[in-house]
């Protein structure tokens, strides 16, 4: 049996969980075993229906009156109890903040290794996995030990795909016995922020500035272009570490991962730290005065020149109509 821990936020299914279930179904077929999906919390019950097309033999709804708010150790307790009772061969969760956190707790409590952000699995003895390193810039082949094997599935290695044929899964309500410490860390409040206007994550065009921008004030020209094309402005880690832009504007391994239709990268050399954040862009236009800048080799379009010359010229050209 493979257990797939489904992530949701207060009853809203995360797409990453459907990616994980698609991955898990393929693995179950190769291992000639069954797939069980696990949902935690009272708000998760209505989600069961939408999981069914992804092809599993069993859906377990873990319920309990204290599961209303996310508590990582309580979610881990659900998995640990199922591990004892059902003896799965593999336990998977999506490679999200929560997925990695819960599986980290499971690994710690059970004293088992946990392989985070796997893009592939090669079951057998030894059991091998492929993991992402440096935000997917390198791949690692590794052996993972333990019974069961614990892992999270990296995001977007597989897009969600419904099973061509599937049987109606059995549904089961499951109430594990919790300890008080399972709830010592839990969400005690939620502060909602309302996104005003266009954000880096939703903008169809993103304009990024790096070392070449040179100063906080230097971003004015990027902002002006963004205003004309309905885009959002971001920066490389150099820009946020220098205090030119707030960290929330960072595009990169330790910032935002963007996926706009067009990314215009200005004065950015193209370090791996930055590429991890912008490689989801459909098209990349690079403006850089260094023709050797690494980002040109990842770009669709390029302009060699100083952004402080090129961007004002583009703005004038747009205004000309």
């Amino acid at each position, binding site marked *: 049996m493979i257990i797939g821990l489904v992530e949701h936020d207060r009853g809203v299914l995360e797409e990453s969980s459907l990616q994980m279930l698609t991955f898990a179904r393929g693995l179950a077929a190769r291992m000639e075993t069954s797939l069980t999906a696990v949902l935690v919390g009272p708000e998760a019950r209505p989600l069961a229906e939408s999981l069914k097309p992804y092809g599993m033999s069993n859906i377990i709804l873990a319920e309990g009156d204290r599961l209303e708010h996310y508590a990582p150790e309580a979610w881990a307790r659900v998995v640990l109890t199922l591990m004892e009772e059902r003896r799965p061969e593999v336990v998977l969760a999506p490679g999200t903040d929560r997925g990695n956190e819960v599986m980290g707790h499971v690994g710690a*409590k059970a004293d088992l290794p946990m392989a985070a952000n796997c893009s592939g699995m090669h079951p057998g003895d030894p059991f091998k996995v492929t993991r992402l390193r440096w935000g997917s810039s390198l791949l690692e082949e590794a052996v993972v030990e333990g019974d069961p094997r614990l892992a999270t599935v990296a995001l977007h290695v597989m897009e969600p795909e419904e099973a061509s044929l599937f049987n109606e899964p059995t549904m089961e309500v499951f109430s594990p016995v919790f300890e008080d410490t399972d709830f010592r860390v839990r969400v005690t409040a939620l502060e909602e922020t309302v996104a005003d206007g266009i954000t880096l994550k939703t903008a169809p065009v993103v304009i990024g500035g790096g070392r070449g921008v040179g100063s906080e004030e230097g971003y004015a020209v990027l902002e002006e272009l963004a205003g004309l094309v309905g885009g959002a402005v971001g920066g490389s880690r150099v820009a946020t570490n220098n205090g030119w832009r707030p960290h929330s504007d960072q595009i990169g391994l330790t910032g935002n991962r963007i996926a706009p239709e067009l990314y215009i990268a200005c004065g950015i050399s193209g370090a791996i730290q930055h590429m991890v954040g912008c490689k989801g862009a459909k098209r990349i236009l690079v403006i850089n005065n260094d023709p050797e800048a690494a980002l040109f080799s990842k770009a669709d379009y390029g*302009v060699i020149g100083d952004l402080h010359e090129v961007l004002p010229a583009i703005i004038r050209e747009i205004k000309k109509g």
Partner: protein
Amino acid sequence: MNILVCIKRVPDIGAKVELTGDRRAIVTRNLGFTISPHEECAVEEAVQWIEKDGGVSTVLTLGPDGAEEQLRDSLARGVDRGILLEVEEGEWDPGETARAIVEAIRAGGREGVGFDLFLFGNEAADTGDFQVGIRVAHALNLPCVTGIKHLELVDNKAVCKREVDSGWEVYEVPLPAVITVKEGINLPRYPSLRGTMKAKKKPVDRVRPERSGAGLQMLELSHPPEQGKKVEMLGEGSAAAPKVVELLKDLEVIPS
């Protein structure tokens, strides 16, 4: 307040990484090393809280002899003392790393574990395991909050905020606690010249931990397949502007 901050030394990679002949490491001959980004912020957070509330901060890393450089860098930013868990070059998996850290904490601890707050990065830039802090917390039977971008310490409690798509999740835990932070929680300072001078005199203890067995064993590294893109050059300097605008129209970014 007594804070332990755990960091990792990672190569300061640029745009390309080259692998060694056995494909088990990155060629670092021409690279510098740095503190992994989230942990750089953990160091800054420790220094800021000690500056505010008083107390002692300690920085710990598990790494080769050269990792003293990252400890000294932390000391130059204001941390008081360092502990190097000195190991041979080569990787320790997250379980082994956590066990070695716990052993060092217990060995140096006074009155239980001795620390009020344990700061880690949410995940290391290179291996991205997301779990060393969690494993240490369990071994010490402490609460652990991960991925934190805002921290308040009041009345012997930690009020922590984690950024999610819809806003911020708030967690509140009693101290002592383990908190793993993300870059963005603060803007790390650069070490000052004075700080760097003072750091040379600060104590760094060295301990040689025993290996306890890795359950996650790296076999080899590889590059993901290249997309093989061919860049279309649109020109040089301001002369390229008409072609760029033409492109923006073709892509329907602006009306044609």
